[in-house]
């Protein structure tokens, strides 16, 4: 198991050191994007290199790892990343959120509430929330520096004028610790409130754009909203998951090509299976 010829966790120690230094700073300045020198990885960029570099920099032999892609442990992307990390560390892997000490994710926060002794690592495709409204990096830097988020507010307001509601379904802008506007990564709105005053440390990595950022536990994370147009999470019309019966989890609409039937099913597949077995602890 330990006959690998490369370093534990694939990355060289200098690369890990840099990422570790930046992670400490990211935690100290919640929501601020810290630049770092992203390294080439043996997986294509856009496949989660930022998240992967964070995971490989924090992981130790005692960790148990879970990797999900849109809530699923067994998509090609999740399998590739999990296999790569397992092969280069020899660490234990799991699909059970409760058993994991590190969860790496793309586009979801697990349904099961995470604890203080766990870390959630997000793969981030586009870290700059102001990119919706401003193409220039120099200008977005200035806007963050001056906490000048007027353009973002106008963008949301125009959405309301056009559609009667805020239609953004992913990457919903949040304000962290009353200071930085932040991209929570392409999680659904359903997951956004889980970032607020959580027990768990959240780390975000964008490999292509060479940025990492963090939300410490017990930190205020508020979705941008207007007094008369509140942030709301998705509504599935009260329909339960067809497999486990959950009405509280984030659901995917599934279309059965043979029967023509439409139904809903949990996006977090391991939670769904656990819930079906009656193995979820409810608080």
């Amino acid at each position, binding site marked *: 198991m330990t006959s690998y010829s490369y*370093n534990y966790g694939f990355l060289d*120690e*200098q690369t*890990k050191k840099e990422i570790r230094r930046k992670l*400490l700073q990211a935690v100290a300045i919640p929501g601020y994007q810290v630049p770092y020198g992203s390294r080439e990885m043996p997986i294509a960029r856009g496949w989660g290199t930022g998240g992967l570099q964070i995971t490989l920099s924090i992981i130790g032999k005692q960790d148990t790892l879970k990797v999900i892609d849109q809530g699923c442990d067994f998509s090609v992307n999740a399998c590739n990343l999990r296999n790569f990390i397992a092969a280069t560390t020899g660490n234990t892997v799991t699909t059970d959120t409760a058993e994991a000490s590190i969860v790496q994710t793309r586009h979801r926060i697990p349904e099961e509430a995470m604890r203080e002794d766990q870390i959630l690592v997000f793969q981030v495709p586009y870290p700059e929330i102001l990119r919706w409204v401003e193409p220039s990096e120099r200008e977005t830097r200035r806007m963050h520096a001056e906490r000048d988020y007027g353009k973002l507010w106008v963008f949301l307001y125009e959405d309301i004028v056009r559609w009667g509601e805020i239609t953004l379904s992913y990457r919903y802008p949040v304000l962290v610790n009353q200071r930085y506007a932040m991209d929570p990564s392409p999680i659904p709105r359903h997951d956004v409130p889980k970032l607020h005053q959580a027990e768990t440390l959240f780390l975000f990595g964008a490999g292509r754009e060479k940025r990492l950022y963090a939300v410490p*536990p*017990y930190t205020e994370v508020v979705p941008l909203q207007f007094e008369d147009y509140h942030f709301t999470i998705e509504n599935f019309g009260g329909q339960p998951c067809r497999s486990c019966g959950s009405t509280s989890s984030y659901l995917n609409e599934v279309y059965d090509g043979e029967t023509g039937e439409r139904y809903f099913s949990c996006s977090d597949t391991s939670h769904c299976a656990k819930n079906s077995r009656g193995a979820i602890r409810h608080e």
Partner: protein
Amino acid sequence: MSDSTHFDQTAYTQATFRTLLDCMARPGKVGSLLTVAEVASSPFDTYLFVVALTLLDHEVVFHVYSDQCSLSSHLQAHTMARVGAVEECDYLFVGRGESPDFRRLKRGSWQYPDESATIIQLVEELGEVTDGLEQALRLELCGPGIQRSRTVAVRGLSCELLQSWRHCNREFPLGLDWILVDKSGQVCCLPRTVQFTVEVV
């Protein structure tokens, strides 16, 4: 960490980093650094050395405050980091009972607040309760990473230094992050976001 015949620095610095990350994410939480024979023989304080091994390399600049025992050259030899003036350092190492002028440290810029210094400072003793700690400062902390409030007791730190650190953090996100380490390897982190009240016990 029991096998001292084969020193696994990779595992060792990883474990140290995770303690620092946990403590930085939960200001006031007291964590424990591990020591092994390989670092205990250092002329530098063991636990400061442990933190230095974990964070420093050739890409950063450090300064040892009031360095009377050529500790800088020792650290440099082990980490390849560059020695620089207080004004330009990324990491400032401070011995027990020293009171450097924090105002000389870089606090980052509005666009790049991460280009700021981190202080790693030795104190006498850290504890989550004040019991048994005489002449300690009792800090009541709040801010990100803290559910409502958290208390930490520190012996070997002056009120003046605390006030001067607070002054340096008055313009968030500019500021200084502070890692306190005591003589038995306990560690506590105070990021620039921390608000505190202090009382002498």
